[in-house]
């Protein structure tokens, strides 16, 4: 303990040297030195080795049996879980399409009944469009963000029972959000992400490894379509901090990042629910705390 830094370095160096030069086990070395080189011949040698080997064989088999006993169960559970997710997805899609059909029916019926109330319907139509309830098309900008194509496989850490992740994710919900935010700032009138239309209540979030837009899971590549003044948006987006950030990542991490003007982009509708908690205050305002 007298020369502390030197002694510490010595330990670390010892470890590294041992790793690299691969010396023989010191236990065996010492025993051989004591014996003087000739192989030992004690009476208990063979039985001892035999017993140890039997135990080792036994341990290895126990471990194997134990691991594989659980495997079919966990695989089955996973499969059923994946099946349930798929079923929920298609159920949700079916509901969404019937909601769209009903919406169209309602609009048609209303249109017929409201002939003459031009101002009201005009305003309503415009609001519906901006709220994402109507499918639209028009010129605009399309931005594509993609995970690097050579995804490295990372085995998940941990003990038995966990399933390894098969791809690393560099892009997250924040990246999609940044692009969308920038597009709104650059003059977009309507935006869709992987064909999910953004509404006033849509959120772009993260659940584990999947990006969720308005509760719907999407995966790379992320196609963001924004309708608006194409040339103006292109110039503004190209010179934005967001665009230069992802341009750098293309070189650094190999992500895919492209954007370009389009003459005619199509965005689907996303029927928005009527608000359940918020409503317009009644004409006689009641004094409540927190008004601004």
């Amino acid at each position, binding site marked *: 303990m007298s020369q502390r830094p030197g002694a510490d370095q010595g330990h670390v160096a010892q470890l590294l040297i041992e*790793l690299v030069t*691969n010396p*023989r*086990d010191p*236990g*065996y*070395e010492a*025993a*051989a030195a004591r*014996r003087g080189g000739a*192989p*030992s011949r*004690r009476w*208990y*040698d*063979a039985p*001892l*080795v*035999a*017993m*140890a*080997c*039997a*135990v*080792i*064989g*036994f*341990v*290895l*088999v*126990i*471990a194997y*049996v*134990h691991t594989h*006993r659980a495997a079919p169960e966990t695989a089955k559970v996973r499969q059923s879980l994946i099946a349930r997710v798929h079923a929920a997805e298609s159920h949700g899609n079916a509901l969404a399409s019937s909601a769209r059909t009903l919406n169209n029916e309602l609009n048609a019926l209303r249109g017929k009944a409201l002939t003459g109330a031009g101002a009201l319907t005009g305003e309503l139509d415009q609001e519906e469009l901006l709220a994402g309830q109507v499918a639209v098309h028009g010129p605009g900008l399309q931005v594509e963000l993609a995970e690097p194509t050579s995804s490295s496989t990372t085995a998940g*850490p*941990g*003990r*038995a029972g966990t399933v390894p992740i098969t791809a690393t994710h560099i892009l997250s919900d924040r990246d999609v959000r940044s692009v969308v935010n920038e597009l709104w700032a650059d003059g977009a009138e309507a935006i869709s992400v992987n064909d999910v239309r953004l509404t006033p209540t849509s959120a772009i979030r993260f659940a584990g490894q999947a990006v969720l837009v308005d509760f719907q899971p999407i995966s790379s590549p992320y196609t963001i379509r924004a309708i608006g003044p194409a040339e103006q948006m292109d110039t503004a987006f190209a010179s934005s901090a967001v665009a230069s950030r992802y341009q750098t990542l293309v070189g650094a991490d190999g992500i895919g990042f492209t954007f370009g003007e389009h003459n005619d982009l199509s965005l689907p509708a996303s029927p928005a629910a009527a608000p359940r908690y918020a409503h317009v205050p009644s004409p006689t305002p009641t004094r409540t705390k927190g008004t601004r």
Partner: protein
Amino acid sequence: MIAFLALAIGVVVGFILRPTVPTWMEPYLPIAVVAALDAVFGGVRARLDGIFDAKVFVVSFVSNVVVAALIVFLGDKLGVGGQLSTAVVVVLGIRIFSNAAAIRRHLFRA
């Protein structure tokens, strides 16, 4: 020889009995496996180097298992069980690799 025969017998007995591992023993199973493999590789290499000693073989296996189990047990009590378990597996794994490399050199002179 005797060693391989005994190993085979242990394997067969294991498959016949198919014991269930109690849950408290589960975290120590990977440790035991890696310690066992380390003892085997170390023993084979010592044999090929001509310095094999039965006592060292048995003692090294038993002590590896006991010490590793103690470390993991302590780690579990202190909240670093998973990480220490990984550390033990990594260190013994490195030893297995270097012993295997030495064995390779003996067998293939490569």
